[in-house]
């Protein structure tokens, strides 16, 4: 529930021990280093980081272009290697890969550029051929001939003066004029639509055929060059990832001395370390003959401390913003209420099974390094189980596709009861938030915060209960509530009464989304049943409608139920107690699991 307890640590040592200590700290991987406010002199480490940064840029460029064609990534393990060897390794690699990759990419770019040009000409011709009857050659200007193509109505054809007319037939008309001016004047008078023609060597349809042939040829060329990149990707991508991983870790290691304070003989490293790891640090201090001081600091970064189940929900806390150090971590509560709310809103056995399958597929296909994707898939898996459970409670299988007797109630006939259950769940959720706010205030020994923030909303609820059981007691509690809220923020505080009521009513969405899932599913089933009666095509239309309709409903309501479950936490629950704004704890470590690809 609370964040991990940390110590602020200061390590003081002599310069000659610095590289070894740095390597050991990096391998231990438990310390969050902080940046001092002082500037540092340029030293050897800066040169090393420059070399590493330059190699990293090259490798990143290679990976960026190869990853589109690579089939898989790889597990990344860091093996100790010197900076010079790492840079040499990277240079050797780049010498092998850069030239053939650059050449293939250049060719692909050239083919793409030519294809774009041809597509543009093709589209222009397409537009013109809509206006020009097929089979006519487009007129072009020469030294002696002025050519213009214009569309005129049939009636206007007969208004062409004899002096201009040379021939006319059903489809086109050739007009001869003594001068360009005569023709232009006439066309303007009759308000003709002049069609601008591109410079083509052939008739439009022939030109289009030629362009299509050239485009086909370009596509083949592109495939050929892409095949070259694919071969390079298959051969070198994994190696590139490993080199990138090594370079990144070494770059971090040699960048780190910038965070040290130093004198001519000593240096000081500062940071934070979990309290249960302090013994490891002490052992390290003995080994490298450095002095370690540690103590408690309220400005420490935040490290969440949860079991493996709750840990899968931490990405939601990260998304909102981590709690400040020592404040309450809401993740354990989210790991319980999010699946509960999701199941309540989605409540369908069929959709639950589909979601479970989707979650399993996502778990299997997501990369080990992509933690957020895996956690999201795990969360969907847990939510699918609650969806099935609530589906059994409410008797829903793809709406009413298969009639199942509800174990508890049918939300369409007992909507009022479902609303009451939803609001009751909301009240429990909000009161949990208020209790957490009280715990936090008591922990901080802040009585003012305790009296003016959670207490008024508890007395408000007791007042409502009092009005039902003992009206004078209810009135007294209401007066106490109003006084406390007035003390909190004058008349604006009193408005919090309606605010709290609004927050509570917001939980009615549990019913609303639950009914929406079942309602749309039933609608799809009714339409499908109607279509089944169509002759011959009936069964096909029936299956098609069911597939399309239920897929749509599934997608919309998975999204809706997820967003609204999360929103009930971020807005309604968190507003009772949560204080975000914590700095994440980033351990200085060689064991980094990162998203690659």
């Amino acid at each position, binding site marked *: 529930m609370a964040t991990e307890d940390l110590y602020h640590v200061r390590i003081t040592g002599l310069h000659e021990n610095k590289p070894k200590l740095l390597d050991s700290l990096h391998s231990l991987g438990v310390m969050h280093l902080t940046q001092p406010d002082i500037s540092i002199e340029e030293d050897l480490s800066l040169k090393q980081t420059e070399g590493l940064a330059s190699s990293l840029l090259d490798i990143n460029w290679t990976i960026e272009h190869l990853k589109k064609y690579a089939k898989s990534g790889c597990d990344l393990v860091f093996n100790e290697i010197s900076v010079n060897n790492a840079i040499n390794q990277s240079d050797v690699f780049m010498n092998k890969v850069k030239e053939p990759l650059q050449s293939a990419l250049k060719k692909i770019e050239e083919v793409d550029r030519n294809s774009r040009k041809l597509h543009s000409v093709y589209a222009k011709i397409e537009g013109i051929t809509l206006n020009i009857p097929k089979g006519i050659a487009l007129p072009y200007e020469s030294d002696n001939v002025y050519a213009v193509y214009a569309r005129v109505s049939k009636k206007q054809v007969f208004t062409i003066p004899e002096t201009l007319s040379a021939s006319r037939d059903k489809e086109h008309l050739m007009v001869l004029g003594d001068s360009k001016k005569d023709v232009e004047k006439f066309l303007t008078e009759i308000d003709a639509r002049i069609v601008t023609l591109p410079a083509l060597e052939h008739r439009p349809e022939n030109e289009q055929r030629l362009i299509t042939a050239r485009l086909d040829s370009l596509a083949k060329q592109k495939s050929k060059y892409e095949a070259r990149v694919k071969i390079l990707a298959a051969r070198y991508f994994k190696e590139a990832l490993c080199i990138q991983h090594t370079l990144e870790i070494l770059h971090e290691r040699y960048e780190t001395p910038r965070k040290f304070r130093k004198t001519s003989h000593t240096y000081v490293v500062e940071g934070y370390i979990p309290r249960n790891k302090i013994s490891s640090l002490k052992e390290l201090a003995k080994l490298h003959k450095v002095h370690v001081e540690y103590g408690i600091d309220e400005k420490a970064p935040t490290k969440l401390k949860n079991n493996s189940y709750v840990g899968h929900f931490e990405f939601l806390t990260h998304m909102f913003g981590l709690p400040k150090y020592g404040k309450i971590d809401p993740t354990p509560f989210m790991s319980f209420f999010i699946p509960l709310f999701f199941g309540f809103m989605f409540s369908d056995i069929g959709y639950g099974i589909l979601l479970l399958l989707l979650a399993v597929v996502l778990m299997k296909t997501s990369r080990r390094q992509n933690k957020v994707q895996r956690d999201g898939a795990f969360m969907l898996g847990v939510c699918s189980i609650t969806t099935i459970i609530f589906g059994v409670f409410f008797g829903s299988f793809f709406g009413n596709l298969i009639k199942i007797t509800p174990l508890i109630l049918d939300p369409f006939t007992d909507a009022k009861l479902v609303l009451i259950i939803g609001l009751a769940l909301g009240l429990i959720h909000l009161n949990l938030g208020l209790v957490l706010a009280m715990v936090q205030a008591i922990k901080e020994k802040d009585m003012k915060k305790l009296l003016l923030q959670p207490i008024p909303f508890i007395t408000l609820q007791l007042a409502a209960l009092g009005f039902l059981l003992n009206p004078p007691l209810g009135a007294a509690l209401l007066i106490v509530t109003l006084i406390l809220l007035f003390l909190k923020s004058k008349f604006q505080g009193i408005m919090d009464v309606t605010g709290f009521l609004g927050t509570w*009513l917001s939980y*009615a*969405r549990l019913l609303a989304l639950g009914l929406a899932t079942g309602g749309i599913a039933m609608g799809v089933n009714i339409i499908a049943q109607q279509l089944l009666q169509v002759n011959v095509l009936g069964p096909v239309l029936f299956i098609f409608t069911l597939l399309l309709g239920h897929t749509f409903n599934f997608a919309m309501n998975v999204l809706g139920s997820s*967003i609204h479950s999360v929103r009930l936490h971020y807005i309604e629950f968190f507003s009772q107690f949560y204080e975000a704004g914590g700095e994440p704890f980033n351990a200085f470590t060689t064991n980094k699991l990162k998203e690659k690809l």
Partner: protein
Amino acid sequence: MEAAGLIAIGAGLAIGVAACGSGIGQGIASAAGAGATAEDEKLLGKMLVFAALPETQAIYGFVIAILLMFVYALA
């Protein structure tokens, strides 16, 4: 007009008008969110939650409609 008809009209107006307001609000929030996500795709999750914020007003309308249909109508 019979009471049942008036209740049905009232329920329809309650959810209909509230949903229109919510729709306009969601449109504004989603447009801004889509712009923000275009610049930084990591904001997608937050954007979805922001887009869902104005839906609360439709929920209030829905509650009124439910109360009219299932509480008042049966009373």
